[in-house]
């Protein structure tokens, strides 16, 4: 077996050193009733490396993907450009195959990279400090709620209904077994009504959680909410799903957010059917000892040279056990390296270009919409909701777009069961070119004109294999 270096002679010599007769004697402490005959598991036979490549290639080719479609999907996962250098850096064995940097002298590469990552994330979000990652945006939001309870010693959590439904579901799930009240504030329309959110805050509230830009892509002024939080001594938690937004618009820190959490997937990480992505967690310095997760700090070595270590570990489970601020251990370390590399390649200017192109593409798409399709009103970054007259029209467009090799959006009711089945959540990035928008609008025109002629045609759910693009 190619990953096992021992020869049979090696094994024999080692068994002799140990003083046992055979391999099975090494397992004598496992009761015989539980021993299985070698080869008796119901698994396929071993594959050569070539056959593994073939198997995975066949599976990959059975999927459609952003490389051979025009992808207008968002909902917390975005098809941004990933420079080749990012994948090169995270493929380096010294980053890829290192463990958690608990032995700092031989992990300074990971540690300095984490320090740079934390510094850049803090700057991008406008926050004072960042940790060294959480699993994903959903679990970051859940951990933010728990942290707010620790900081304020209050337990009521107010969640805006315009936060991504997945973030809400995971947070509600995390909180449901613990003390405290979880209040979800229903929103009217595809935007965040701050008045409604503010009305839900009281003196027992530990934090209010809003998303900015919200689940529908809407951008709004958080200042009134900050004032309301101050009035009730509760924390302002701002969630986000596309961190590139903050190269263009005021970041959470500019509004005085106490905790800002979200996804860093947009910062150089491929979509990969849902993971591994990157949960970002930032807060004010004063709350750092209540923060979950690992964090890297600057220090000196015996010779007085600058170096980095994992620090504040007395918050963590391996020291504090049942009293830890979180149970998290393994995090998304390598994805921090990816994001640090990405941001280094981009710089302020590159990030702003990414953000401007992403926003401009959505703007151009909205400007070209036919009158029968409405985009949600108000300021939007790179995501919005398109509303159709009815479900049949919307589905007809979905079918047409699939035929044209476009992933035109996500039916909103698939994400939020309370939504009417006639909307699409649509997102753009800098990967969307003029030609993609033109094709999208043409598909819309074809579908709408056809629908108007024959509304009752049974939709054929797209299954065609699209021709390759790019």
């Amino acid at each position, binding site marked *: 077996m190619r990953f096992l270096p*021992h020869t049979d002679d090696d*094994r024999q010599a*080692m068994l002799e*050193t140990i003083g046992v007769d055979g391999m099975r004697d*090494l397992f004598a402490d496992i009761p015989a009733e*539980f021993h299985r005959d070698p080869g008796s*598991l*119901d*698994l396929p*036979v071993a594959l050569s*490396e070539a056959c593994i490549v073939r198997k995975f*290639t066949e599976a*990959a080719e059975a*999927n459609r993907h*952003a490389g051979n479609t025009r992808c207008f999907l968002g909902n917390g996962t975005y098809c941004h450009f990933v*420079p080749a*250098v990012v994948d090169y850096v995270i493929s380096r064995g*010294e980053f*890829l195959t*290192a*463990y*958690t940097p608990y*032995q700092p*002298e031989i992990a*300074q590469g990971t540690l300095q990279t984490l320090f740079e990552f934390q*510094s850049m994330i803090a700057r991008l979000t406008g926050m004072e400090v960042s940790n060294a990652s959480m699993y994903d*945006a*959903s*679990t970051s939001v859940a951990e933010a709620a728990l942290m707010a309870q620790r900081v304020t010693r209050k337990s009521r959590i107010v969640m805006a209904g315009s936060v991504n439904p997945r973030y809400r579901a995971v947070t509600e*799930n995390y909180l449901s*077994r613990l003390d405290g009240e979880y209040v979800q504030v229903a929103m009217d329309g595809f935007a965040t009504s701050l008045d409604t959110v503010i009305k839900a805050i009281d003196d027992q509230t530990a934090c209010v959680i809003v998303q900015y830009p919200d689940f529908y892509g809407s951008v709004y002024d958080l200042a009134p909410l900050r004032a309301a939080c101050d009035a009730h001594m509760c924390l302002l938690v701002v969630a986000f799903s596309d961190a590139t937004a*903050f190269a263009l618009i005021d970041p959470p820190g500019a509004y005085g957010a106490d905790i800002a959490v979200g996804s860093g997937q947009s910062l150089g990480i*491929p*979509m990969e*059917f*849902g*993971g*591994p992505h990157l949960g970002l967690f930032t807060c004010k310095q004063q709350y750092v000892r209540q923060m979950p997760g690992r964090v890297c700090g600057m220090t*000196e*070595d*015996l010779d007085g040279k600058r*170096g980095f270590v994992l620090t504040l570990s007395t918050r963590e489970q*391996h020291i504090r*056990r*049942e009293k830890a601020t979180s*149970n998290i*251990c393994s995090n998304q*370390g*390598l*994805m921090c390296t990816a994001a640090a*590399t990405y941001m*280094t390649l981009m*710089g302020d200017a590159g990030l*702003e270009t*990414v953000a401007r192109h992403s*926003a401009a593409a959505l*703007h151009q798409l909205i400007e070209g919409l036919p009158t029968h399709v409405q985009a949600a009103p108000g*300021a939007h970054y790179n995501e919005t909701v398109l509303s159709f007259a009815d479900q049949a029209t919307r589905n007809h467009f979905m079918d047409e777009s699939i035929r044209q090799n476009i*992933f035109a959006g996500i039916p909103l009711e698939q994400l939020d069961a309370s939504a009417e089945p006639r909307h699409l959540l649509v997102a753009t990035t800098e990967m969307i070119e003029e030609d993609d*928008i033109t094709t999208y609008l043409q598909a819309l025109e074809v579908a709408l004109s056809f629908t108007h002629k024959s509304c009752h045609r049974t939709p054929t759910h797209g299954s065609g294999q699209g021709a390759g693009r790019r």
Partner: protein
Amino acid sequence: MKYSATSGIQHEEPLLFEHAHKAAESISLPGVAGNVPAALETFARKAPAGIPGLSEPEAVRHFVRLSQWNHGIETGFYPLGSCTMKYNPRVNEQVVRLPGLAHVHPDQPEESVQGVLALLYELQTWLGEISGLPHVTLQPAAGAHGELTGMMMIRAYHDSRNDTKRRKVLVPDSAHGTNPASAVLAGMHTVEIKSGANGRIDPDVLRANLDDETAALMLTNPNTTGMFESDIADICRLVHEAGGLVYGDGANLNALVGIARPGDMGIDCLHINVHKTFATPHGGGGPGAGPVAVNDTLSPFLPVPRIEQARDSYNIVKTDDSSIGPVFGSIGQTGVLLRAAAYIAAFGREHLHKIAEDAVLNANYVRVRLTDAYHVPFPGLCKHECLLTDEIQNKHGVKTLDIAKRLIDLGFHPMTVYFPLIVHGAMLIEPTETESKNTLDTFCDAMLEIAKQCETGDTEAIHDAPMMPIRRRLDETQAARKPVLVWHDDD
């Protein structure tokens, strides 16, 4: 001397914020260069974030130099106990980068993702077969996340029987710190079970702690001393008779894979650290994945979304009334999970048991070679890792930490130190199946030399260690007292 220290060229490399030169021109980017709407411009960021930006050649050199300050599995032996640092096959890196896997959006229509669903579903069935617990969720993002998921399911099981007073979770004192932390996050409270003199659970102590409030026992088997809990059948029976369930921490599955199945022993629920047993890279701390396998008792409570096989397609089940609900924002860490699938596929049914065989062979070989020079707190056969302490070296003023740091100068990553907590000065060594006899011999020779230097009082190099890496011992107290977590340009 057979081993060689780390002594390659090492460049000092400033923080990227300290690079004098800032990139003259931004990276070339695709997209629509049109206008941003005026409504959005009213929210325009007031000042740039302050992310320096390096040109591509500078950025590559920056990160390559930093990488060279790291020890990784590809640079050397990594005998970290309870971490299972094995070789990460390169073909696994190749296949997950296929465009049809890497660039798939999680909300694409189901008919457009049948290929990846098929691979993930197959992995579910394999993990079910390997663990003896046939129902699997791939959603948890790491081992501790799997523990939380498992404890949520166990709680849901008791609640479904209106047995809502069962909130007590028994956790042996040798357990990983994540176990009690995860139980608490699931709204339970923990009671610590003291290990017996042989490093194993004492069934009498267990029995005394079981009552009608016991929700579960969280058990690591083999435990973190490297010993198999040979009373496992009795332990599970006792817990079940008391109305509780048994949660298995699969961090040490490498000792059992292909040899014996936790589900057959009576364990109800097990998380599997695929970044340990199934060779997905640790990445400097993650990402991992912690799929959870359960028996029929717990299957109604598995998280959603989950993958099911229909007649001629794979479907994603999004809601289910008995489910505990979602614990993660997607179906799971697909890229990590697919690497694990590739590892299992490479071994197949005929070789899978050799993982555990060679892992256990290697640990026992190291144990036997080091037995006289180092104190072995729990003598006898170990499984995939062996536990030593610094008791003998203490007499010469040398501690576990010194031994660990000296190993660095001799070219090795240290073992896990000061864990488990139940012995003083623990050194937990896990060699894994992908290390050669030659590597183990050079490591043992290094350990024996350190022991000999202690004995002869020649300990200066040990106390000064490490001298070879780019930094010497770092001041962790200073770092924690006044935390500097981000760079300020005036620093």
